[in-house]
C-alpha cells in the first residue's frame, strides 16, 4: 500500500513533536491539557498536550505518537489544526476532515479517529483542571 504524499511529509517532518514536560511535571499545571489515547497492544498510542491561554485559545500543542505512518501524520496534522483555535472550536474537528486531508485509505480511518479522540481527551483534561464540566472524552 502506498502512502499519500501528505502522510509521507508529516512522517518525515512531523510538526510539533514533543511535550511541555513529563506527565508528572504537567499534572498540576492548569494551563495544560493532556490526552493519551490508544493502547500499545493495538499498535497505536497518541499523546497530545495543549497549552491554553486565559482567553481559552490553544496557544501551542505538542504530540507524541507510537503508531503507523498514518497515525503519526494524523496526530501531527491535529496539532497544526488546533493551534490558534479556542478549545470549544477545536472540539468541532472531525476525523473525516483528517481522512480527507491526508487521503487515508479505509484501513487507516481508525488513525484519524484516534487523533480526534486525543483532541477531545486533552481538552477534557484541561476543562477538568479548570473546574469546567467534563466533556465527552471517554466516548470509546
Amino acid at each position, binding site marked *: *500500500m502506498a*502512502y499519500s504524499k501528505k502522510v*509521507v511529509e508529516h*512522517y518525515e517532518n*512531523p510538526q510539533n*513533536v514533543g*511535550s511541555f514536560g*513529563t*506527565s*508528572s511535571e504537567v499534572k498540576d499545571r492548569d494551563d495544560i491539557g493532556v490526552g*493519551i*489515547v*490508544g*493502547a*500499545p*497492544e*493495538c*499498535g*497505536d*498510542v*497518541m*499523546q497530545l498536550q495543549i497549552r491554553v491561554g486565559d482567553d481559552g485559545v490553544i496557544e501551542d500543542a505538542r*504530540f*507524541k*505518537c*507510537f*503508531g*503507523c*505512518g498514518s*497515525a*503519526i501524520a494524523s496526530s501531527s496534522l491535529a496539532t497544526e489544526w488546533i493551534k490558534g483555535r479556542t478549545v470549544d472550536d477545536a472540539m468541532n474537528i472531525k476525523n473525516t476532515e483528517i481522512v480527507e486531508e491526508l487521503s487515508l485509505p479505509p*484501513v487507516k480511518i*481508525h488513525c484519524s*479517529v*484516534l487523533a480526534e479522540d486525543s483532541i477531545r481527551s486533552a481538552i477534557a483534561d484541561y476543562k477538568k483542571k479548570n473546574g469546567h464540566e467534563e466533556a465527552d472524552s*471517554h466516548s*470509546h
Partner: protein
Amino acid sequence: MSIELPIYMDNASTTRTDPRVVEAMLPFFTETYGNSASRNHSFGWAGEGAVTLAREQAASLIGSGPKEIIWTSGATESNNLAIKGAARMMAKGPAGSSSRGHIITAIHEHKAVLDPCKRLEREGFDVTYLEPGSDGIITCAMVESAMREDTILVTIMWANNELGTINEVPEMGALCHDRGVLMHTDATQWVGKMPTDVERDNIDLMSFSGHKFYGPNGVGALFIRRRRPRVRIEAMIEGGGHERGMRSGTLNVPGIVGFGKACELCAEEMSGEAERLLGFRNRLETELSSQLDVVTINGHPTRRLPHLTNISFGFVEGESLMMGVSDIACSSGSACTSASLEPSYVLKALGIGDDFAHSSLRLSMGRWTTSEEVDYAIASIVKSVNHLRAMSPLYDLHNEGIDINAIDWQSH
C-alpha cells in the same frame, strides 16, 4: 562497491529467480514445448525427459528416490495434499463419523498447515496444537507427550517462516517411525538452505517450494515415502491420473525444469552460502543490539536459520519503521494494515507482548545480499528507530521508569 536501492531483504517471502535457472527454463517455452504426457512424439519425449531429470535433481537434494517426488503448484498445495490426503487415507472411521484419528501440529505453523488441520477437525479428526516455549521451538518431547493411541499424523514445520527457529524434526521422525505414526514436515524455509536427508531423518511426507530457493514461482513438490513405510494418500485433484494418480493435471514443464535446476544449484552452493549469510546475520544482530537499547532478537538464540532474523525494537511500531526504512524490502510482525489490527500470531505464540510483536522486523537475506547492503540496513534501521523513538510516548514512559504494561490503556 556502490549500492543499488532498494535493497531486498525479504527472501523468506520469495527469492529472485537465479538467472541460471531462467536460462534452463527458456527453451521449454518456445522450442521443446511438448506436453510431458504425450507419449508418441519427440516433443512429448523431450518434455518427459526434462521432468525426469528435474525429479532426479530434486530427489538428490533431499536424499529421496526420484519416484518419491510429486509435483504441485507450491508448498500450500503440498501441505494440503499431505495433511488432508494422509488423514483421509488413514482415517479410523468413515466420513461423517467422529474420532477418526488424532493429528499433532503447533499453534505457530503456517496457515497452509493450520487451515487444513481445522478442516480435518470439522471432518471428525482430533487435532492437538502444541504451544512452543519462549524460544519458539517445538521439541520431540512435546510431541511425545501429546501422542495418543489413535495418533495418525504429526505435522511440524522444519523451520519457522517468521522466526527461522528450527524444530526437532529428525527426532520427531524417529519417534513417529517407532510408533507407526506418519511424519509430515513443511520444509518450505528449510530445503535448499540446509542439508536435508529424508531417509536419515525419518521423514514420510515433506512439502517444499521452488520460489523459496531461487527457482520460479508456482512450482512445489511433495516428497511421499514409498518404502518403510509405503505412504498412501488420497488425491485432491483428479483428472487424468498424472503423478501416479496423486496429482492430476498437465505438468508445468518449464517450471519443473527451473525447480530442478534450482535444486542442483542449492546442492552445490548452500554450504558456502549459509556460512556467508550467518556472518551477515550475526553482524546485523550485534550491531543493532549495541547501537540501540531495548532490542530483542525473537526466537531461540542459536537454533535458527542462518539467513533470517526477527528483531523487536521496543516502543517503535513496526509499520512506521518499515516506512522509515522504505528502501529496504522486509516484513513486519505488525498487522496494522490488516482489518483485525492483530499482530503476528507467531510472535504471540512465544508469549511476546502485543506491543513488542507490533515492534518487529523480519529481515531475510539471500544469494545476492552483499556486505555493503548489510551495513546500509544497519545504518538505516538505527536512524529510523531513533527518529521514531524521538516521538514515541512509550519510549518516554520507559525512560521515566514507568512500566507501560501497568498502565490501564483505553483500548479501542
